[in-house]
């Protein structure tokens, strides 16, 4: 997988894989519909839903006004009433306008009603930086959502996951938030049509190794894989663990990777303070303290609103070289 490369014949982009998953969901279940800003006639602000309006019509590929709270809330209500809405929010920064609905309703209704009201809702949104979109389109707030009991948070980082994570999200009786990193849409690769469904419960080892665990998710996965390549030339065998699901975390997979390598580098494009990387590090300290041969390293974004200028943005974000350096520190 490589961002920005033109797909070869038989290759699929991350964007196409997402679209194919949407198409399959809309075809196979008439309760499913897609709703959000510019998902229909425009084709999706990142082109994910291009062509779906023509195939499924305006009732099921539903353009909304710029009213995040209203259409996310409407998704919750429609889910309560037996439908299976997929709500698209343009970016995670905009999702803050719907935070009341996501936290106070979607995540809360089941418990607050004593188990009477499950909310089978899927919300997709773009996250992350790297496209010079500055401080209101570039943040990685999925860790905030992973803080909330009652919702599942997933981050497909591969073409296969882009293609296969939607179906189990739709069968989950509870709300599922899908975070698509903006830098991945043009990534391409061959889709493994024969691969068995992997579900939403487990992290995945993307590259086995013995010396250090590089624990990443979403847009940081390609950087972790590149770092592993580079470390290999230095004679360091890095294992790359893709978290895939950010809530609930696959504690067993994290512990078992650390048990193999005894060193961990956590890569997270969010800010370091109070981050998902902090949570993963704390769990390693709690569950795997006696396995560790070195302190856990974290590679996160600088604590700054993501700036526009390319050099500044690159400096703010975790880069492959930062991951390599952190792994060297851990290995010593």
């Amino acid at each position, binding site marked *: 997988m490589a961002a920005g490369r033109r797909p070869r014949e038989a290759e699929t982009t991350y964007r196409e894989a997402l679209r194919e998953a949407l198409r399959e969901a809309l075809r196979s279940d008439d309760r499913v519909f897609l709703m959000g800003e510019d998902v229909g006639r425009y084709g999706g602000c990142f082109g994910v839903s291009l062509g779906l309006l023509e195939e499924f019509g305006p009732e099921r590929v539903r353009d909304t006004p710029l009213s995040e709270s209203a259409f996310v809330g*409407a998704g919750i209500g429609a889910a309560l*009433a037996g439908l299976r809405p997929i709500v698209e929010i343009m970016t995670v920064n905009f999702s803050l306008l719907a935070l009341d609905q996501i936290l106070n309703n979607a995540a809360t209704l089941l418990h607050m*009603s004593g188990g009477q009201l499950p909310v089978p809702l899927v919300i997709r949104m773009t996250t992350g930086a790297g496209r010079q979109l500055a401080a209101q389109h570039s943040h990685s707030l999925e860790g905030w959502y992973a803080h909330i009991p009652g919702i599942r948070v997933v981050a497909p980082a591969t073409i296969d996951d882009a293609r296969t994570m939607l179906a189990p999200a739709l069968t989950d009786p509870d709300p599922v938030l899908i975070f698509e990193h903006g830098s991945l849409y043009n990534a391409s690769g061959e889709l493994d049509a024969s691969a068995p469904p992997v579900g939403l419960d487990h992290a995945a080892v993307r590259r086995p190794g013995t010396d250090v665990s590089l624990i990443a998710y979403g847009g940081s996965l390609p950087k972790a894989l590149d770092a592993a390549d580079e470390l290999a030339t230095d004679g360091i065998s890095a294992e790359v663990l893709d978290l895939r699901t950010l809530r609930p975390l696959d504690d067993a997979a994290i512990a078992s990777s650390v048990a193999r390598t005894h060193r961990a580098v956590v890569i997270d494009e969010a800010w370091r303070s109070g981050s998902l990387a902090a949570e993963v590090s704390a769990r390693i300290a709690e569950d795997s303290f006696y396995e560790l041969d070195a302190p856990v390293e974290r590679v996160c974004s600088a604590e700054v609103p993501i700036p526009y200028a390319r050099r500044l943005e690159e400096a703010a974000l975790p880069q492959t070289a930062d991951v390599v350096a952190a792994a060297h520190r851990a290995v010593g």
Partner: protein
Amino acid sequence: MTVARGSRKTPSASKPARKTASGSRNATSVVGVDQANARHRAALLEAMLRIRRFEERCVELYSAAKIRGFVHLYIGEEAVAVGVSEALTPEDGVVSTYREHGHALARGIPAEAVMAEMYGKATGCSGGRGGSMHLFDASRRFYGGNAIVAGGIPLAAGLALADHMRARPHVTCCFFGDGAFAEGEFHETANLAALWGLPLLLVCENNLYAMGTALERHEAQTDLAMRAASYGMVAWAVDGMDVEAVESAARRAAGAIRAGAGPHFLELRTYRFRAHSMYDPDRYRDKAEVERWKARDPITRLTDRMREEGRLGERELARLEKQVAEEVDRAVEAAEQAPEEPVQDLLRHVTSAPPEGD
């Protein structure tokens, strides 16, 4: 689009049953209709008394520390919940606010289940997890109990959207207060519902205060029905202290919505006689204002009307009071006896999957 600005009357002051009878020359049938009318009024009265007496008991129980947390009383506003509920079928959906004891009882949730919830007991209508502000009953399509002002309105639009997409002839009724007019969620949803023609009945209980802030201190334009109409939906202002006026307007709106006329908005002008919550010293209202509104008590108003027409004997009123008092007694007794939700079930219902260790 109709806006009855400042109207103290419903758009249709006539009573539906009488209207049906008006063409009849058969004296017997007119008597029959009058009897049906009298029975209906008695039912309205009983429903309002149930809410009033239930909440008066809640005040006592709060003082006795049997009920804790926030409790927001509906006393004074009973005509709204009772009148609107008359226009709804069991298949319709209801979304409410944190001041929802009246809506829950009018919807038919048994007083026992509501009282047990106030006690935080396992038999409560939310399993003790919601309390006064979060009453739920999925079997009656009662979707809470939303304590974020205007937070229930988008959700109600979604319930209506599902009915709309499935071509089901149901109405979703959403109650909220005048305070919700200052929230974006109301305006976003009003636009969305009108744009999509959703079968949504927006019921604004204008009790003139957003907690302690008077309407003219929180809205630049206080004509709420007119503002709702600006979204392209039918909107009426109605006397919310007259249960029959409320019922008539709600029936007309619900009928139009079922016929495909899209969302309707009712501004029901009402007043809460008690403080905002148990913690509220009520310093922001003029006592004389409260007394003026109490003179328009919806229960007194209906009983006076029934007496004037010779349709309410003192024995009948006493019988209704006794029946309601016994019902509340039973609810309190049942709540006292009900089991607590076990602490080991704390994590149940966070997700649909059983918690680890189950």
